[in-house]
């Protein structure tokens, strides 16, 4: 521990030792130092909590202290790991200049592997422990796709995107279900709603929210001119009927339920299936129409799921905005009107404008595999922002 804290207090050159195998930018070095410093603070907090425990564990505060100690145990494990690795690294240091060549070779190898472990600890393990657990990590997702500019070409592109997400779900073993779909006369899809169920799907897909743009020659275009059309996607946290924080989302009295078409005399006089329903949440003005199921009851349930998901989404957005107002916060909320990605058929490439990533394999993206690369990159980008946020707030 002594060794380590000495290191921590000596910036610049000594710090290079933390991750000796990789040339580091000063900025990255600096970041690692800050990460370790935060961890150290947490460990000191643990020590304090420990010392505050009453001898016979009789005070009611002890319970909460014990709880906190239990919760931060992984931090202690990581810290101990860090100290031990650092110590071993120091010991190997002296062997690097050993007179025996075999010994030196061994030491180099050992040093190398210890360096890697240390880098892994500081760059991955510890940050992931320090970042506060997300409250949405268990949620499934609901994707709303709407065709934008470009008429029937946009609708055709929407069906391409829909297929892309269904394929990805298949690969990831998520359960995807198209709950609503309006076909357009030109063969495409005007709008669609898809439920994608699985652990962590919302967090995996949430950066898909925004405007997706396609540049290609439409099949129907004789002149061979490239058109640009768009599809807007909104990814919502899926709020199922059984989720327990549903109550607080809305009051039943605030929801107006309407059936869509008139049925004349109704009852025994009519056996045509007319099951469409529309919900209006009066305080927010959100309306949801659902007609894809054969029973009104099922359409109503589906519509309520969409309503809850939209309300939950508003709540999350509000919370992020509030946090941003109280302290500096770099974490963005998805801007739905932002053009986030371009699919260029002529050049066989897909570009995500937020992270400046281009994949030169359009078909692999549309088949779902390439899309995963975008998701990973966006997730990484997000994690870094959250970490940056935490560091700057400390």
């Amino acid at each position, binding site marked *: 521990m002594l060794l380590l804290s000495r290191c921590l207090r000596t910036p610049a050159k000594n710090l290079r030792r933390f991750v000796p195998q990789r040339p580091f930018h000063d900025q990255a070095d600096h970041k690692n130092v800050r990460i370790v410093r935060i961890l150290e603070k947490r460990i000191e907090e643990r020590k304090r909590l420990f010392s505050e425990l009453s001898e016979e564990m009789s005070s009611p505060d002890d319970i909460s202290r014990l709880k906190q100690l239990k919760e931060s145990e992984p931090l202690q494990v990581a810290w101990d790991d860090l100290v031990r690795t650092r110590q071993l690294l120091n010991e190997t240091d002296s062997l690097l200049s050993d007179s025996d060549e075999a010994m030196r070779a061994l030491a180099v190898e050992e040093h190398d592997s210890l360096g890697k472990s240390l880098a892994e600890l500081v760059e991955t393990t510890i940050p992931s422990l320090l970042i506060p657990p997300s409250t949405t990590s268990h949620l499934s997702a609901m994707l709303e796709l709407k065709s934008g500019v470009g008429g029937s070409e946009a609708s055709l592109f929407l069906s391409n995107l829909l297929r892309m997400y269904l394929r990805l779900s298949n690969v990831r073993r998520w359960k995807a279900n198209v709950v609503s779909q309006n*076909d357009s006369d030109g063969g495409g899809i005007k709008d669609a709603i898809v439920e994608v169920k699985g652990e962590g799907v919302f967090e995996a897909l949430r950066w898909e929210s925004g405007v997706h743009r396609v540049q290609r020659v439409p099949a129907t275009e004789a002149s061979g001119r490239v058109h640009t059309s768009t599809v807007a996607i909104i990814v919502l946290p899926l709020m199922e009927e059984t989720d327990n924080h549903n109550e607080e989302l809305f009051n039943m009295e605030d929801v107006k339920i309407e059936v869509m078409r008139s049925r004349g005399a109704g*009852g025994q006089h009519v056996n*045509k299936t007319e099951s469409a329903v529309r919900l209006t949440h009066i305080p927010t003005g959100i309306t949801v129409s659902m007609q894809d199921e054969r029973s009104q009851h099922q359409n109503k349930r589906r519509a309520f799921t969409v309503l809850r998901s939209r309300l939950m989404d508003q709540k999350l957005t509000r919370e992020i905005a509030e946090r941003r107002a109280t302290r500096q916060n770099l974490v963005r909320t998805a801007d739905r009107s932002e053009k986030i990605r371009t699919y260029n058929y002529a050049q066989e490439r897909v570009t995500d404008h937020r992270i400046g990533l281009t994949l030169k394999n359009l078909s692999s993206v549309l088949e779902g595999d390439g899309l995963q690369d975008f998701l990973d990159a966006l997730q990484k980008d997000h994690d870094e922002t959250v970490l940056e946020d935490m560091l700057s707030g400390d």
Partner: protein
Amino acid sequence: MHSKLIAALVQQLGPAQARQEFRWMLKHSEHSLPDMVRRRCLGEPLQYILGSQPFGPLNLLIRPPVLIPRPETEDWVLKLADRISTPLKPPKYLLDLGTGSGCIPLLLCHLLPPGTLHAHGVDISPHAIQLATDNAALYGIPPHSPENTASNTFKTSLGNLLAPSFCDDAKLQPPYDIVTSNPPYISWNEYLELPRSVANYEDPKALFGGPTGLDFYHAIARLVRRDGFLRPGAIVALEIGHEQGQDVEHIMRVEGQLHDTEVWSDPWGKQRTVLAYR
């Protein structure tokens, strides 16, 4: 091939409905698609072609000529389930008159806590009795027996509600806590105006309620006023035609001697259910 089939359906149903129904047909790939479309274009109800109809959370088997459960019925039965679910101890006994597919008692059995409802469905049509029995089996709702107190139960019997000997024929066992019925309520005049898919395919016996459409309400009133037929606090819930609210309320008060009545509207704003309380 699909576009041709859809075009045929659009002719019959208009574009929006055609697209919707075509998608539902696609999900029933056990039947031949062209065959389903051809039958639909001749006017056969979609529910008979697909062989099922969702009713609340249930998906019931449907076979001609038994009446297809309607969304209006689904709506009031769900409301009724809410209404009777609270004070439900000890178990209640329910009689459903003209049970058809069994939709009303089976949905209630499905929604209410196990062991709180014992239902008896009666119908004049052997087709209906067979279908209701099949639907009960589909959802694992057993017939009533002394050993079976832990589940909700459902049994059926044949009987003619309009016959004087109905109680004995149908082996009724009053007193009942709940009487439900969606009896035939279409009058002579209205019968002539019915859409083809109703008049040509659904059992006329399931629809036709006598010259005024009110025959069955009179018969039900005579039944429930009998001594010991209803338990105190019993509920009688009857589906009605869109203009029969006043008449049926009157029949229940005067002939049925149930003085406390109310009328529920359906989601389309039409009067649809008369409730009467003992």
